[in-house]
């Protein structure tokens, strides 16, 4: 039985296949409308996340399947103190596949040890969020046509931003890639991520605290939100939250074919004036998330 806990479980060939299927679904949705007839997806969200949950549910419904689940720990038996293992033992008997979000890191891995059906990690605290990375990858591929030879800038919270870590890891496997990391000192990319996926693979990279300075080099700009829930201390959050805001002025020196991505939700790190710019891709990216999740559900259920 296959699960998806960490994006690095997937080979580049498997990612290519998922991206190809996702793009095909976009082109021919009717051909996939009954692929999961009679199948049930359980969305177990121990932590609220409207868009990821709705994206999974939309994906399963678009495949002809059905959905059950809960959208916060308060409405599950976790509020009575039930362990992840016990919840999964029970719920996996009621469904064919599980998408699970949990505030504690590693909870989806525990789920795989007890589940009767495939488990998809829909985000575990600040750790992994592989379907967001798949969403990022299908968007990059759709916009650029390839993964190789791209200069990718990451801006904002690179320390706690799990989507950044996973995308760095996934992109580090392609040739000719270059990374540019833009963040305040306090929110720099963790050393272990840099060591494991950048330095050890001799991938050229630069670090900067100024977005305008590096803007002309970028093919992809991946913006992130400075998330309040990742801080233990409110003062630190308030001091850093407005550090890196993307405005039309900052885009003046950017390439014509730059593509701006963001995992959403946006707070104020991208000014709404940027939304009209043809280089802004973040809403298309959210839409792509549904198609790549459809491709993933089919793959884990063994449906061609």
């Amino acid at each position, binding site marked *: 039985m296959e699960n998806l806990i960490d994006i690095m479980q997937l080979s580049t060939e498997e990612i290519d296949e998922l991206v190809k299927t996702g793009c095909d679904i976009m082109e021919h949705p009717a051909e996939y409308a009954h692929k999961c007839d009679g199948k049930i997806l359980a969305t177990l969200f121990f932590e609220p996340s409207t868009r990821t949950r709705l994206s999974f549910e939309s994906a399963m419904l678009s495949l002809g399947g059905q959905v059950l689940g809960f959208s916060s720990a308060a409405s599950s038996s976790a509020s009575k103190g039930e362990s992840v293992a016990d919840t999964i033992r029970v719920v996996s008997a009621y469904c064919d596949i599980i998408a699970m979000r949990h505030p*504690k*890191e590693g909870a989806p891995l525990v789920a795989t040890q007890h589940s009767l059906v495939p488990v998809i990690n829909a985000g575990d*605290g600040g750790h992994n969020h592989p379907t967001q990375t798949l969403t990022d990858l299908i968007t990059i591929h759709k916009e650029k046509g390839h993964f190789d030879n791209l200069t990718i800038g990451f801006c904002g919270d690179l320390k706690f931003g799990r989507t950044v870590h996973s995308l760095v890891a996934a992109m580090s496997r392609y040739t000719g890639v270059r990374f540019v990391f833009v963040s305040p000192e306090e929110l720099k990319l963790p050393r272990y991520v840099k060591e494991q996926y950048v330095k050890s693979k001799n991938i050229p990279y630069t670090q900067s605290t100024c977005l305008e300075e590096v803007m002309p080099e970028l093919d992809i700009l991946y913006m992130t939100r400075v998330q309040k829930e990742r801080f233990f201390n409110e003062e630190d959050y308030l001091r850093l939250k407005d550090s890196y805001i993307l405005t039309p002025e900052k885009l003046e020196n950017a390439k014509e074919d730059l593509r701006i991505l963001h995992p959403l939700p946006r707070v104020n790190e991208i000014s709404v004036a940027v939304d009209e710019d043809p280089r802004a891709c973040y809403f298309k990216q959210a839409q792509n998330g549904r198609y790549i999740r459809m491709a993933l559900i089919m793959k884990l259920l063994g449906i061609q």
Partner: protein
Amino acid sequence: MIIDSIQNGIVIDHITAGKAMELYNILGLDKLDCTVAILKNVTSGKLGRKDIIKIDREMELDWDLIGYVDPTITVNIIHDGKLVEKRGLKLPERIRGVLKCKNPRCITSVEQELPQEFLLTDPAKRVYRCIYCETEAGK
């Protein structure tokens, strides 16, 4: 200083100087009722100074645990006064039930009956990471 040689037992040799007590505690040797000798700061041609532990009894040892504490160690098994096995150690791939993850966001921080398990991710730097949250051991 003279320490008697043993007839049937184990000599844990080439322990990095100063680490013998850590190994003694982690292996639970305090629970043994046989003679256990701890030699500290013994002159060594190979290491300069080393520690040695002699256990006057044959017993099963957790090789992974010893390898984790100090991979330079050599373990000698003595039977009828003769050396019957000499074993070099290496860093174990996995360590179960010894280290505890210190990440407050890890699932093991709330579900404490979960087995604590760490995986060797960087042998050169001896880095172990929690299998659940990937936090480095000791951090």
